[in-house]
């Protein structure tokens, strides 16, 4: 264990600076497992992941480039220059140079001679998709060019906490699915729900279920939404589990899907075999928006991104169109329905009356209720704008008609697109759209947000 700690520390400090000598494949694998374990506990995982992937990625392109250069130059002396036009930190260039020199030497090309007539001019470059290492081989008046791709860095993640402490843990990333060659093709994630070690996602194309296997999510089954009414832009979605946890129901505008949840051992990866009961159908039936005593359902507009305001069972009130709704236990007993109107006003419906909520002007369109046992026992978690392009989440209490902040903001990695409480109300799954990086479309992640009493 102590060895693991030392190596994790070295990884943390050196990140990209690793030589193949101590980073033999077996050690590399062991370190990755140990370091990821440590990091998972500390909530700082991706630094080691970046370092490991990147260090490995220096060796392969260096070997390939040296191979191509030596194929042109043949054994002999040459002058090696390296310039860095990429986002690789300048601290790493000496390491890359060392690896390249060793690889060239293995091919009989010695690079120590500054007076040599031959020059190998290496440029560490990159485009939107990948790093590109280019070698210009200058022999007399002739210049020849070879180039090799050299991988892509992985962005680090971070977590933060505040006063009534919200925590988040990233469960799933679309980029991981892509890297693991899972069946993922730029879908929009609309909602997420967990059940018995599985993660179910509703995307704009399908209902898909993952099972945790070897620290990754393996696709268990998926159910295509099919060709129904086109989804609106900015589509909303919802997932609910049946009381016995055996069925998941997905709602998207104009579509409803129902799928029996089966044990992981029964599944066939990446397929939806006929053994498993599941189907999607065109539907304008109301969506479940609140479970518990009220069990409210609301009609969603088929062409828009909001609920129409018609709720079943009826509240006896004419409700405005709204983006989200949640059932909120009240301090004096009973429950109230909270809705976030499309005009930006949050309203609370209780005792046959609808009243505006003060202090909610800076909330985003989505919120969910979290049963924390802290303070009033229940908090509303709503999104706010965070730093840069990223939103934050914050817990609020609603003792009367004014929302009072109950936690510091919890920074997220991008825009909060959907919040949904778990069946037991003790956690919230958050769908986050990550800022688009040059050369890539939008990626998503699903975070589990929980709270600790302060």
């Amino acid at each position: 264990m102590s060895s693991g700690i030392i190596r994790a520390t070295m990884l943390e400090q050196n990140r990209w600076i690793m030589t193949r000598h101590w980073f033999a494949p077996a050690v590399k694998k062991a370190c990755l497992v140990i370091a990821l374990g440590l990091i998972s506990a500390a909530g700082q995982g991706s630094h080691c992941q970046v370092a490991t992937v990147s260090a490995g990625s220096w060796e392969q392109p260096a070997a390939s480039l040296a191979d191509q250069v030596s194929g042109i130059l043949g054994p002999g002396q040459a002058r090696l220059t390296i310039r860095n036009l990429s986002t690789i930190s300048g601290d790493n260039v000496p390491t890359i140079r060392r690896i390249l020199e060793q690889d060239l030497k293995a091919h009989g090309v010695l690079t120590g001679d500054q007076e040599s007539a031959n020059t190998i001019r290496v440029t560490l470059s990159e485009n939107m998709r990948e790093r590109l290492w280019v070698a210009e081989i200058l022999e007399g008046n002739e210049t020849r060019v070879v180039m090799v791709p050299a991988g892509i860095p992985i962005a680090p993640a971070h977590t933060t906490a505040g006063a009534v402490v919200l925590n988040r843990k990233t469960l799933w990333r679309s980029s991981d699915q892509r890297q693991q060659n899972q069946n993922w093709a730029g879908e929009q994630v609309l909602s997420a729900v967990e059940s018995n070690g599985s993660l179910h996602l509703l995307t704009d194309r399908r209902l898909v279920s993952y099972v945790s296997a070897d620290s990754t999510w393996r696709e268990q089954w998926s159910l295509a939404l099919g060709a129904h009414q086109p989804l609106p832009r900015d589509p909303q979605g919802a997932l609910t589990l049946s009381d016995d946890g055996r069925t998941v129901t997905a709602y998207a505008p104009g579509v409803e899907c129902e799928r029996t949840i089966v044990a992981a051992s029964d599944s066939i990866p990446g397929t939806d075999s006929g053994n498993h009961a599941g189907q999607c159908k065109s539907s304008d039936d109301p969506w479940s928006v609140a479970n518990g005593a009220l069990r409210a359902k609301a009609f969603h507009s088929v062409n828009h991104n909001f609920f129409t305001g018609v709720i079943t069972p009826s509240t006896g009130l004419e409700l405005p169109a709204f983006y989200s709704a949640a059932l909120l236990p009240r301090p004096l007993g009973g429950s109230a329905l909270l809705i976030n109107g499309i005009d930006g006003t949050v309203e609370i419906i209780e005792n046959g009356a609808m009243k505006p909520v003060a202090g909610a002007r800076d909330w985003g369109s989505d919120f969910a209720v979290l049963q924390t046992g802290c303070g009033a026992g229940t908090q509303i978690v709503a999104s706010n704008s965070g730093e840069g392009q990223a939103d934050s989440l914050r817990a609020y209490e609603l003792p009367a008609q004014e929302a009072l902040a109950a936690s510091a903001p919890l920074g997220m990695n991008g825009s909060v697109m959907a919040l949904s409480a778990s069946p037991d109300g003790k956690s919230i799954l958050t769908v986050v759209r990550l800022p688009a990086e040059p050369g890539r479309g939008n990626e998503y992640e699903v975070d589990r947000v929980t709270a600790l009493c302060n």
Partner: protein
Amino acid sequence: MLRRFAISFFLVLVTVSAPGRTRPHYGGTLHVGIEGDPWARPDGLAWRLVLDGLTTVDTGGAVQPSLAIDWKTENNAHRWQFHLRPGVQFQDGTPVTSVAVVESLSASCRAKCPWSEMRALGSAVVFLSDAPMPQLPAVLAGNAFLISRALNTGTSGTSGPIGTGAFQVSGFVNGVLSLTANTNCWRGRPFVDTIEIRVHRPVQDQWMDLSLGRADVVEVPAEQLRQAQQQRMQVVESPTALLLLLHVADEGALANPNMRAAIALAIDRTALSNVIFQKAGQVTASLLPQSLSGYAFLFPAERDLNKAHDLRGGLTPPAITLAADGNRAIQLVAQRIALNLREGGFNVQVTAPNAVHPNLSLHEVPIQNGNPSAVLEVMLENLGHSAAPADDGAASLYKSEREFLDAKTWIPLLDLPRAYAISSRVRDFQNGADGLPDLANASIIGPGEEAAR
């Protein structure tokens, strides 16, 4: 570690609560000003609002399904089959069938098509070619291959093409092209009800419209980006979206490749970028920008007057003409190039854009983000060169580009962005893969958001 955590914690504590992401609102009219023609080829603003292609390219450059839901290739990319999305209708209610797609593509591509044969096969469209077409899905995402039911369009007519896009043409009155939301759009209804595009509006007038609340989206040419920023306009700038090139006619005195190479070496691109474009443009001597290729630095863009003189070999060619269109910045570029070339020993006259057979001419070519190989193929085709890169690899692209540019008939000068200034009531404004505004996903802020501001 502790220090980093402390800093993060502090940053979180000092974060001021601001409105979170609210969902976009429906309704309203978006007022847009443009200097050119919305139906200009190849990159007029209206095309992609009204029409869709079989495929599309997302902002990350990846090819995505559009009217085709999937596609497959056989026989080493000599045959492609695109399956159409079921249930899609043109804006006049007629269904999008494979026959309609074939008719549309036949009408829009009469010559030099990437395919040699095309036919409808059930709900699919099949493309065949004697040469492999590895980039066909990406190529079909281009504006040249958008699918329409009627192509008889004109700037001043009230009718326009009928497509499947988010908006349909509803009129053209007093220089304003009106587009209304296509409620049945297969991608979902757009958020705004109407877009009104005021065409042929000079940029300064557009800016005035914006300041007076009469426009929501106006153009900011690259050469005026700095000015717009100084005026604190809210500017959204795309990555490189246009390539400015000089065409050198391979005839007369310039049939000599050394003369053309001398011209390339005599041009001071840095001065063009710094002086005329206020550093908004990026100096380049390659077709693909560095961000797409990763190897653009291999094409030196520095001026070398001595080498230009050497290549000219003491010869003074007869007077040559340089044509430039009416755009003021391009006129300035032409004048500065003429000055550079005179310093290089050439006698250059700047002429009107409609001059017959100019020796030199300035051109702007759109660069769509996407697969570099497909982007290069489209660019080469736009420049009259049909040889596609052999494969997707960077080395192969470099080889194709090097071979093309070594002829010195096309001299890349500057990579330029597209930019737009927007009013404070516009939200979710983004540029598409071609740098043009993606107005179908823009919306006008709702009453709640206005109050929060």
